[in-house]
């Protein structure tokens, strides 16, 4: 395994000389809960996309929600909290330890795929 760079090799002052580097940081690895999208219940209000702090709600080119990006979903539960659908929400929270691969819609865990930012 390569050694991390020395002080002469890195930019000074902790500056990062590129943009959008947060995409490289898989915040999904932090979670102990994950949000699960239920396509059949979803009314496509996109409030979940709006509140997600990690842009982890995926949308297509028509601005329709297509799923949760597990590379970045930290399991904060805001999407589930705001989901207005009754009697059962279109986004529910489950324990990460209970998550099975088959349960995830559009599971992109570890792929580093960037969610579409809806064109407004």
């Amino acid at each position, binding site marked *: 395994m390569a050694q*991390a*760079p*020395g*002080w002469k090799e*890195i*930019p*000074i*002052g*902790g*500056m*990062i*000389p*590129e*943009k959008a*580097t947060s995409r490289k940081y898989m915040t999904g690895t932090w979670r102990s809960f994950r949000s699960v999208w239920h396509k059949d219940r979803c009314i496509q209000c996109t409030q979940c996309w709006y509140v997600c702090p990690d842009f982890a709600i995926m949308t297509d080119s028509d601005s329709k929600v297509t799923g949760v990006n597990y590379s970045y979903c930290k399991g904060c539960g805001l999407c589930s909290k705001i989901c207005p659908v009754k009697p059962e929400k279109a986004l529910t929270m489950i324990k990460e330890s209970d998550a099975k691969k088959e349960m995830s819609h559009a599971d992109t865990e570890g792929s580093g795929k960037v969610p579409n930012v809806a064109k407004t």
Partner: protein
Amino acid sequence: MAKFEALTGNNAVAYAMKQINPDVVAAYPITPQTSLMEKFTEYVADGEIDTEVVLVESEHSAMSATVGASAAGARAMTATSSQGFALMWEVVYIASGLRLPIVMPLVNRALSAPINIHCDHSDAMGGRDSGWIQLWSENAQEAYENMIQAVRIAEDPKVLLPVLVNFDGFIISHGVENVSLYDTEKVRNFVGEYRPKHYLLNAKNPITIGLLDLTDYYFEHRRQMADAMKNAYGVIGAIADEFKKEFGPSYRFIEPYRMDDAEIAVIGLGSTMGTLRVVIDECRAKGIKVGSLKIRVFRPFPDEELARLVSGLKAVAVLDRADSLNGISGPLFTDVRSALYGKTAIPVSDYVYGLGGREITLDNLRQIVTDLGTIAGTKKAPRESTYLGVRV
């Protein structure tokens, strides 16, 4: 063509800032800095310069705004004293950690408590480990000239550290002197345009700064700062050479006075070094071989030059206008003695004086020379500082 004007130290520094014409100045008033900013903002209000002045709600905000402006790519400055410096303390460390070439005049005033608005060096001493370069001025002329050089020192790509330009509150800031002012065009040519390599307002090459480091990177970034401070020795010397070529006066790290055949010497910072020369001349007339060493660059500390300058002496005394309250001495003494350790065994004694603006008299300074004469013979300096001028 240089012109002479009778100016207070604050006005001389404000004039230097006017000639530099920084992009942004964010500041908050505090005695004895206030009239510096009043003068500077007058220049802006009169349309003589186009600096963006931000009147913030506290010194913490002042340094924060200055850091933000500097990071964005502006040549940014602020100014303060005492409690103001203390209030902006966390951001002072951030400024140097982010490697921003901010220049700040610090009008030296005692730290509270008790509240005291007069001169001592405790404020600057609080920042001696902050990674800021520190220049010290004896009078308004030096404050003016240090400001001009400070911009070049800070912005040098091998340095990129903020610079503190110190000058004594009231004594220099409010005292009127004949100051030789240089042609604005020449000053502008000397400081040049600020061309940062990396800055935030750059859509072509965007950057992010102010990030978190975990245990795996913090040390490396701090090591870079040590490297920059070491580079500052060379850069400060080079800028002084350029300044001499362009404007005339020569600047060193340490200014010796009547040191050629000296046997004893007094080391110190700031305006008292001027007062001291009266006593040195008096003692010399009596045949006492005493000289003085005025430290102009305190950070980085000129340890090797100091050791060279005192090498043949019998005893030295340090004037500390601040107390470290470490059970032993003031802060300058600690650096001086540490610099000399292993290089010379001469006795070094410390005098804490002038706290809270307490006047230092010629008699006080004569006492030091007398003491040095004794110590030169006994070869033993007292373990603790002598508190000069305090009522017992």
